[in-house]
């Protein structure tokens, strides 16, 4: 395959990138070929995502970055006729498409925040504890504590502490998205996937979520898909550039934005296409 050329270079450079690779990789993608029916959405993607870093996926629409993200918690299982033809995805060393992997267990460990904030039409409290209740954890004291901890971690506690039992749908767009983040971290995942979490938010709400992402990386591995290159530049440690279903380049964010190896990356970043 002609495309394996830049990709194999990738493999040599990418793992070396994290400055202090003390922790093992959170996600290892090997030679992944992904299809929606007959449509070849991802071509031979090789990628290592280090733990406790923020990794941003950038690229024009339809380049496969969201598809790849949704492979990490097997949300693509919901899409009829989508399948992985070759390759593997390992989360903390375990192949998540193996025969003994329950996607339910995987999703408890790999949380997700969606593009469109989607709090349930329940109270703020019930939104946060949803993931715990479905695991059968119903002890009031435990839930109260987790609600406070999660909302604090999502920088939302001070704004909502007096109205925890009002509907989560009544919050503003930015608050809703932070509520969704609180809901995701309440189940204590190891990895949080964010699919364009700020695309529907105004600049002030965006900056709050970005600050939050920066804080969260101490405890979680974060993978964020974004259309906003400034955002990738501001809050990520590593940036991966995708184009037409291929990973073109992954590197430290500063390097991608100042001195990318690939010409396509440079063209995209400087706004020549995309």
């Amino acid at each position: 395959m002609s495309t394996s050329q830049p990709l194999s270079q990738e493999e040599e450079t990418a793992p070396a990138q994290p400055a202090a690779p003390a922790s093992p990789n959170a996600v290892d993608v090997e030679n992944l070929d992904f299809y929606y029916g007959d449509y070849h959405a991802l071509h031979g993607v090789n990628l290592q995502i280090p733990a406790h870093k923020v990794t941003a996926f950038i690229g024009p629409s339809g380049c496969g970055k969201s598809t790849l993200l949704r492979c990490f918690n097997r949300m693509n299982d919901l899409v009829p006729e989508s399948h992985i033809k070759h390759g593997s995805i390992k989360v903390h060393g375990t192949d998540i498409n193996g025969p003994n992997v329950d996607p339910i267990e995987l999703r408890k460990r790999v949380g997700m925040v969606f593009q469109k904030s989607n709090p349930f039409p329940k109270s703020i409290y019930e939104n946060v504890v949803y993931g715990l209740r479905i695991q059968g954890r119903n002890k009031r004291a435990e839930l109260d504590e987790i609600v406070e901890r999660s909302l604090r971690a999502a920088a939302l506690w001070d704004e909502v502490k007096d109205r925890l039992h009002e509907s989560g749908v009544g919050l503003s767009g930015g608050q809703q998205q932070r509520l969704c983040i609180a809901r995701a971290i309440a189940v204590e995942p190891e990895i949080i996937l964010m699919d364009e979490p700020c695309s529907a938010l105004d600049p002030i709400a965006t900056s709050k979520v970005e600050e939050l992402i920066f804080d969260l990386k101490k405890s979680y591995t974060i993978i964020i898909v974004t259309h906003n290159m400034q955002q990738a530049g501001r809050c990520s440690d590593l940036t991966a550039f995708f184009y037409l279903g291929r990973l073109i380049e992954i590197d430290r964010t500063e390097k991608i934005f100042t001195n990318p190896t690939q010409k396509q990356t440079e063209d995209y970043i400087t706004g020549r296409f995309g």
Partner: protein
Amino acid sequence: MPTDTLTSPAPDLENPFQYRRDAAHYGEKATLWLIRTGTYLVLLAAACIFLQIGIKGSETVFTTHWPFVNTAFFTEKPSTLYVFEWEGKKHELSDSEFRAFKAERHVEDIPAESYAHSAGGILPCIVGTVLLVAGSMTIALILGVASAIYLSEYARPSWRMRLIRLAIVNLAGVPSIVFGLFGAALFVVYFKWNISLLAGWFTLALMVLPVVITSSEEALKAVPQGFREASLALGATKWQTIRTNVLPYAVPGILTSSILGIARVAGETAPILFTAAYVVRDKYPWEVDRWVDFFFQPVQALPYHIYVVSSKIPQNAYTERMQYGTAFVFLAIVLLISLGSVLLRIRLRNKLKW
């Protein structure tokens, strides 16, 4: 008038935008009137039906003296009406009243004209209809919602699914009398349930099933995909997701569909003709020896009663009272049930906003 501007329009034309009296203009007007008339004809038809039943029915249902409601009509069984003259005075009495009248005056017999089912009340019919609606809607909702969940949440598109959908569409098109015959053959004869409440429930439930399935499916599809994804992404199983985050939000929509179902179930005569309805029953449905007998007893029902009193007995001025009274009560009951579902739906909608 300023004449020095270069762009001034032809000044001699008074109104350049006036209507053109051409075919398009008159065609537009004619079409509008045609469709408008058609629409108002619907209103006229509805008004005629409701006014006639309302006016004539209220003569039976309401009275001019306290308590202004004909309580006998709501608390008695239908009975035979006797019309006769006695000492120069004309009397219209029901079966029991006529017997009391004779006993009081110590006479063996008074020559009287009798009209079947034209006196007394319709309590057994009201009870029967409410029982039929409640039971069949329960069955239809359980089966229908289950199928809708399977079709919209679990099933993947395939030829088998297309076959099932085709079957549902076809089921919706089956005439109700065919359902009646089917119910009679399967439940009444083959299952040996005889003419019974249970046979009527299942026959009616099968009849409304397509409506319930189709609209429940629509209601489920209207729940935003984001709720399902968010729930699954938090590690919920598919059924947990449906139970906590899909089905509750679809309930208002499902209720809407069941309103349509209620009106149909309450109104259909043909399906219960051979499966559940009797012209007359001596006992009320709750007067059973063992509780199982409750399900295997026939009932009287409002639509069937209307059919009987309007077509099975000779028509005259004395029979009209029962016909319109029953129709009036029948309409009122269906409206009440529908109103109840609408109110419930509004309450739920206000609670669930996204």
